[in-house]
């Protein structure tokens, strides 16, 4: 048979023969069920379906205008076999032992959009499956959560921030939508751009300056080095020398991002803070050990950020933290892919991911395996913070409200 359409494994063929759409949903359901069972056995969480609902405000005593939200997305998901499955749990000790027992965990979050990191993150941030070119420097076409938040609640620019890993994310903060757009979005900080501006490169920093892994040979050029240095000094209260000295102690771009996030939290305490991590996406280079290192580092950094949230007076007790991959990675079973390396097949595993929420108002140690969509995040944030994401396609998640 010719190779222009990759042959499927016998298992896949059997699945396809029984009805592809149904089979895909069934596979996603089984995946969620497995995650749920792994978590029940390893992290001691309960099934969410048996719990009675109560309102968020009743649970927290915190009104929407006092509440803060931090969202962590992973650009480049990690598969269950390297994370939640029994053989993968050694890679995520902090998630398993510290965060999941405190969280409400959603085991089946489906991304029906384009599986490229920029466009998928834009979809998460707008609540609409965006169709912009993943590799072009374009703003999302639909209003972002930051624009809804700031316009509806009349919040200043300093109250919504994005910390993103790649120069290609520099326009993620506000959309091209005519009713929103320029001046209404989040401020975007690109730690690597900051570091480039502060150091002009140099051998001590190159390990922190890798732009992205989807297009490893190509880094979008950005201007505005002077503005970046102004951000560093005026907003983050960091001298160039201190920043450079600290950066020299870090081992990865995501560690640099977390360092900047901490500065932002201390200096500006934004109510809506979004951080996108990318270390796991080294998987595109095909080296499994580096992919596993990325998962372990991300696990540690998520726990570090949670500790920071709990220890910073502006955040402690009133912050809800969301952690979710933008999508998954290809399964080993799909002959069209190359296992963990990419997310190109569009198979069920690459589209089905998870989300955890923890902190203010969130029930602890609960797992839900009903299907959600990636686009449900923005309407949920709207209900939590009190704004109306009118153009988002998803639905608020009742288990969090």
């Amino acid at each position, binding site marked *: 048979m010719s190779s222009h359409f990759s042959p499927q494994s016998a298992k896949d063929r059997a699945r396809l023969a029984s009805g592809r759409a149904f089979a895909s949903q069934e596979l996603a359901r089984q995946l969620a069920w497995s995650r749920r069972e792994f978590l029940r056995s390893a992290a001691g969480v309960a099934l969410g379906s048996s719990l009675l609902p109560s309102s968020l405000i009743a649970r927290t005593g915190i009104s929407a205008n006092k509440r803060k939200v931090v969202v962590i997305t992973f650009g480049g998901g990690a598969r269950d076999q390297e994370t939640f499955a029994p053989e993968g749990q050694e890679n995520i000790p902090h998630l398993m032992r510290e965060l999941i027992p405190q969280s409400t965990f959603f085991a089946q979050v489906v991304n029906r959009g384009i599986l490229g990191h920029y466009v998928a993150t834009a979809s998460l941030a707008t609540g609409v499956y965006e169709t912009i070119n993943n590799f072009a420097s374009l703003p999302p076409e639909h209003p972002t959560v930051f624009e809804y938040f700031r316009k509806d609640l009349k919040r200043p620019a300093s109250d919504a921030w994005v910390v993103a890993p790649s120069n290609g994310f520099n326009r993620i903060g506000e959309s091209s939508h005519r009713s929103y757009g320029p001046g209404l979005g989040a401020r975007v900080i690109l730690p690597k751009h900051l570091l480039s501006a502060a150091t002009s490169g140099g051998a001590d920093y190159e390990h922190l300056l890798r732009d992205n892994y989807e297009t490893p040979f*190509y880094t979008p050029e950005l201007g505005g080095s002077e503005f970046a240095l102004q951000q560093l000094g005026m907003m983050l209260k960091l001298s160039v020398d201190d920043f450079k000295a600290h950066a020299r102690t870090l081992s990865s771009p995501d560690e640099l991002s977390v360092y900047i996030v901490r500065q932002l939290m201390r200096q500006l305490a934004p109510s809506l803070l979004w951080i996108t991590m990318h270390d796991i996406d080294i998987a595109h280079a095909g080296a499994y050990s580096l992919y*596993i290192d990325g998962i372990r580092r991300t696990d540690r950094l998520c726990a570090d950020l949670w500790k920071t949230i709990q220890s910073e007076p502006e955040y402690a007790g009133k912050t809800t933290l969301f952690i979710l991959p933008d999508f998954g990675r290809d399964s080993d079973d799909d002959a069209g892919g190359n296992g963990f390396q990419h997310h190109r097949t*569009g198979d069920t595993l690459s589209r089905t991911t998870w989300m955890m929420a923890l902190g203010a108002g969130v029930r602890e140690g609960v797992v839900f395996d009903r299907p959600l969509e990636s686009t449900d995040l923005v309407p949920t944030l709207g209900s939590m913070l009190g704004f109306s994401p009118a153009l988002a396609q998803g639905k608020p998640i009742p288990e969090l409200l």
Partner: protein
Amino acid sequence: MLPSDLKPEQFIGYPPEARKLVTGYVAALQRLPLSFLPSLLREVIEYDFKFPAERRALEKELANLNSLSAEKIKDWFQGFAQIRLSSQLEHSDWVNAPGQFVEQLSSYLSTTHQLDAFRIAALAYADRLRAVAPPEPPPAPRLGITVIGQGVAAHGEPLFRKLRAHGAYFSAVKPENGLELLLNVVAGRAKANPVPYGHWYIDGGQAAAHDPALTCVSHHALEPVRAALSGKIRAEIARPGMGPEALRTLLAQIRPVDLGLGKAGDAVLDRFQVKLLTEGSGTQVFSTTFAQWAAREALRRAQPLTLLVRFAPRQRQKPMNEMLSASLAPAELDPLGSLIDADIGAYYNWLNLQRLPGAAQSSFLVWFEGHNEAIAIGPSLPRGTESNAAASLEQLLNWAS
């Protein structure tokens, strides 16, 4: 232009054997939908540089298309016929640049949310084709051998975790002259079944002495080619207006002669090696990725009877731009990380071997080079078993076959 407008003279730019092949089937091609045809032409245009197994499959596919009645064509391609295409795609030069068309089509399908429909149509077509033109069984049972861990003195974690359930684990293997012995076995098979491109030796480092009957690809031998490619990439990404998609298109157009290959060699193998470097992600920089991807592509495309893959230590992780620079300093190696890469690479080699016809009769061996550990998988070996009895690699191969 639509397929119904096709004429034989439009294939004048095709390589000679491809042109001869395709001009015999123009009437059949005229009946196919545009959403399908360029992906077939993308294979046809490469016909001169394809392995024998690929050629036979393509010839069978074209003959099958030619034999289908108008009613059957409608039935086979109804999924593709429902895909909506842009006029830009219709007006592109899909006859002479089918690869570019397919790339643009992929992007278009994503943005118009037709990717799933296309995927379903493609899988249905592949299933039907497989039913009417089943893959040829191999003339002899296949053998896969993977050698991992070169340069690692000791390793604390268990190896072959993914494979143990499928075969027998041996912990007292005699390692003396192991590689030489394995290469001799492969050479013996090449003599017994002298099939063109039927017996391969892929080395992630420098190839050991081997029988000239083997098709050999090594990361070390391609060093000048990799350097030439890196130089081209550096030059291209520095050009104004260059983006990741343009770079990808340019890489797809690189010929062996552009990188210093093709002067006196094997045109099919030269093209294969260039594609490993221009289409494989990470193959340019990590030798472990190179070895795994080369094995995947050799199995998928050449469908060899014998494949020996030897992984070698890769360079440690460095920023992409540093790895691309033509530094004269010797690369610092990461043997332990490479062992982890190779361990999963061995699993992927087995998975890919299992995807070929005759999988039930094939045998597979992974050996930790220079050490006592190996796993053997074959029709006569019990699964999920362990043995601490002393055994030579030759014995393991005999038991596995």
